């Protein structure tokens, strides 16, 4: 099974775990991305995630389908949230289950790496001083945003 979604609702990690685990699976992995309090040395109060929603949904689904070709019997559920998130809020959840651990663990890693490279989602960090900046991973630091 594969299910992927871009959502503006809070992500229910426990529900994703439940969704992928079956009688035939022996290993379930969950990866959660959460908002943390410091990035690039600046105190972060929240992150605003935006997406090219139609393409993000399609690209995320393509990634999960590519991942599913690598091992038989994978069960995959992925959600990425958009909107304004506070500290500790879950931005992305990747749940993968398989009969054995190696396919589950490797698929989880495959999906998060591909997601970060390919899915058209952006984040603007909000700082303690009220400033906001778009994060540009290609430069390994944040780039100045328009006011």
């Amino acid at each position, binding site marked *: 099974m594969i299910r992927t979604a871009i959502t503006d609702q809070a992500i229910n990690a426990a529900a994703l775990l439940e969704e992928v685990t079956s009688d035939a699976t022996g290993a379930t992995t969950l990866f959660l991305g959460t908002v943390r309090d410091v990035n690039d040395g600046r105190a972060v109060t929240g992150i605003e995630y935006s997406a*090219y929603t139609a393409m993000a949904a399609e690209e995320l689904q393509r990634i999960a389908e590519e991942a599913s070709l690598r091992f038989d019997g994978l069960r995959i559920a992925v959600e990425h949230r958009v909107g304004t998130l506070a500290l500790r809020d879950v*931005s992305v959840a990747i749940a993968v289950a398989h009969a054995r651990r190696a396919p589950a663990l490797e698929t989880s890693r495959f999906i998060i790496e591909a997601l970060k490279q390919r*899915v*058209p*989602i952006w984040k603007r960090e909000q700082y303690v001083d009220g400033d906001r900046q778009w994060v*540009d991973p290609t*430069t390994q630091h944040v780039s100045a945003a*328009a006011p």
Partner: protein
Amino acid sequence: MNQLQVLLFASYADAFGASTVTVAVPDPATVADVVGALRSLPGGDVLPEAPLVAVDRRYTRGPVAVHAGQEIAVIPPVAGG
């Protein structure tokens, strides 16, 4: 010349001051023509040398032809996760 609508997001939308812009390009046109036309607009200097362009919600590579009716988007460096 042909008028094409281009979708912009995040830092690019901020730089151009719009989430959609219309550019005039030769007919037939390529992705490079679209990027060149964008670059000449106010805010166009935000674009890197070879920005990512998606057509109909798929990334393009190389000299891909584009035409009216397609969904054309210029994609800033992604930062999901």
